[in-house]
């Protein structure tokens, strides 16, 4: 449906090719979250891996920082329609977390859990094979609390609400189980290139 009188501002071609449908490029880094920003002290920080209800590994901040650190530079896409190019992150690949725990991706789905009670669901296949990390630095600096520090999940190929802030664990489960936003009208999977913003998109 053409909108009368709307010309629009097209980004240059090299930008347009990197923008999923309905997204626009932003240079800043907007903050979106459902509640207050939790202030997680490093001495209180922990990260737990669970298979079903059972914890199988746990790290404190120091131990987690001794795991192999990888870098990822990726474009990120927020469901509220902004995208940001070439964001650079350092953290521990989910592959390396699993290796350290001595297990292989044990179940088809994963729930990410966070210090503020937030959850989000991601198929396990989207977390392994170098696709995702638990990030602890953004642009070379510790991640600020507003942006999810001390640590956030980074799953850059899905809408950014999947990259859960203030993460404190991954739980592997048998059935795909809707997380916080997924229960509130947002898409179960969230592929920006298929514009899966809302339930049934």
């Amino acid at each position: 449906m053409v909108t009368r009188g709307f010309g629009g501002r097209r980004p240059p071609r090299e930008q347009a090719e990197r923008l999923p449908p309905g997204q626009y490029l932003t240079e800043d880094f907007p903050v979106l979250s459902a509640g207050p920003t939790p202030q997680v002290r490093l001495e209180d920080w922990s990260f737990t891996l669970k298979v079903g209800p059972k914890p199988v590994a746990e790290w404190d901040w120091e131990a987690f920082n001794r795991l192999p650190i990888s870098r990822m530079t990726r474009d990120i896409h927020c469901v509220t329609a902004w995208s940001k190019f070439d964001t650079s992150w350092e953290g521990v690949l989910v592959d390396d977390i699993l290796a350290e725990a001595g297990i292989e991706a044990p179940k088809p789905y994963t729930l990410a859990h966070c210090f503020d009670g937030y959850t989000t669901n991601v198929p396990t296949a989207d977390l392994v094979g170098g696709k995702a990390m638990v990030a602890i630095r953004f642009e070379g600096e510790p991640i600020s609390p507003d942006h999810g520090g001390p640590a956030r999940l980074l799953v850059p190929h899905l809408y950014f609400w999947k990259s859960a802030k203030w993460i404190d664990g991954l739980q592997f489960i048998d059935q795909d189980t809707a997380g916080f936003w997924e229960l509130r009208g947002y898409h179960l999977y969230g592929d920006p290139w298929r514009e899966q913003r809302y339930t049934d998109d």
Partner: protein
Amino acid sequence: MTDGGAEPGTVRAARWQPSTIKRIVRQTPRVTSFFLLPRTPFVWRAGQHADVRLTAPDGYTAQRSYSIAGAPEAGPEVELAVERLEDGEVSSFFHDVAAVGDEIEIKGPLGGHFVWNAADGGPLLLIGGGSGVVPLMSMLRHRAERAAHVPVAMLYSARAWDEIIFRDELLDLDGKVGLSLAFALTREPARRSQDFSRRIDPPMVAAVLAALSEGPRLAFVCGANRFVSAASDALIAAGIDPQRIRTERYGQ
């Protein structure tokens, strides 16, 4: 984080559909309300938003989310209060081009967290900065229609008296039973004894909380990120359970 009464899981999938601009009402020099009538009307909950999508002749599209200002009872026309942003691709279209009778694509209702239903009860604390007042206005209007007994305190920060969106309606509501309203003007002196003339800070939040006879069951905070952070940090410092605070942020 827990949700009192937000009914997660009951969200009906929203679809793109045409709507017609029925009315345009200027609210402030930078904010104008557009009343859109969707071809297939939908029912929303106070605090939800809608997406609008503009399409150029060559198929290029731009879409944005706008909070719904009207109470659910005000349907089927969906009131979106659009602030003109410098360089705003979509907001400048609304302000400079859109006219009554135009068709705009809309999708809604959206969002299932920053919502309040009369059945959720109170007391209610609403803190808005700038156009962050829009979803709070929907809640206030819904309360007036359905739950006028619910105590509510509101703090609304704007740059100037003339930039207070819905000012006359808010002034009319203020002083009614169970409702207390304070404005915080950041670039002008206060005009009323209960108002403030500075940016939001913890003493201001404490003063607004004191207007409620008991702590809020739910606090809704909406505005720019810095404003929302300042407000919610002040609420936590005042002893409010973070689980009772819901935020909606835009930009930085």
